């Protein structure tokens, strides 16, 4: 599957900021349906595409018109990989909260918050850079993307 066209790098940065706020609210309130919604947001970005991802839509509708256009572009593949990592943590977190294993929900959500915050504040994609580290522990998985 093709990752899709390159994107305006400020879009994913905006998405990471929104994600950070959403995950922080989940942790403070413990309201897991919000985390479930965030899981769906991650899933759209990871498995369908960046363009239809809700925060990208929000960025194009609300933020992009107010900014000067940029010719800078960022590859879509790393971004979609990062959304996949986010999806896994958010899914585990949702299952933890909903299934009554609150500690699991809190820890998984905190990890997702950590990664989203690093992305929003430092433009550092944790999932992308430690991809090799992740592969080290899953040596025989075929990756076709």
């Amino acid at each position, binding site marked *: 599957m093709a990752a899709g066209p390159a994107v305006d790098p400020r879009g994913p940065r905006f998405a990471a900021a929104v994600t950070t706020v959403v995950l*922080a609210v989940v*942790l*403070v*309130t*413990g309201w897991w349906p919000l985390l479930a919604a965030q899981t769906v947001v991650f899933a759209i970005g990871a498995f369908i595409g960046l363009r239809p991802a809700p925060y990208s839509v929000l960025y194009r509708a609300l933020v992009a018109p107010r900014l000067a256009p940029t010719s800078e572009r*960022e*590859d879509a*593949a*790393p*971004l979609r*990989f*990062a959304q996949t990592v986010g999806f896994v943590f958010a899914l585990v977190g949702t299952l933890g909260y909903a299934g009554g294993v609150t500690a699991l929900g*809190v820890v998984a959500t*905190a990890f997702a*918050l*950590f990664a989203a*915050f*690093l992305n929003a*504040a*430092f433009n*550092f*994609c944790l*999932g*992308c*850079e*430690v*991809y*090799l*580290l992740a*592969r*080290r522990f899953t*040596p025989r998985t075929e*990756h076709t*993307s």
Partner: protein
Amino acid sequence: MTGLWVVVGTLVAGLLVGALLHRRNGRIRTTAEPAGESAELPEPVTAALAPGSAVTLVQISTTFCAPCRQTRALLSHLAERTEGLHHVDLDVTDRPHVAQELGVLRTPTTVAYTSEGREILRVGGVPKGPDLLAALGPHLVPEVERGSH
């Protein structure tokens, strides 16, 4: 209430790690002389070494790495205008064992080799061009003509 503390703790940890990563980005680590027998280099690396260049920069990348693209542009430009410097971008997405054998955990990591395959230095993250050139300086000086055999 616990949730609030988790948020605060996570954000503080994020700030610390972020600042640390920011500081370490592009830092050059000189490789110490191997004590005994030097480990054998993975095949894709030996294949990438340019015999005609004094130094080859082997960049370890993956498809899922945004700063790799930036690094590739910077290093290929640097190699183009530097005598005796060669640059190769090695995508290890589908062959992570190459990175494992080199002890590379994050991408991009750039390893500089002499034409004989001896490691000179490593740079994690996006390198800083002038710093890298300065560190490689002694190795880039044209070698005295060796007697041909």
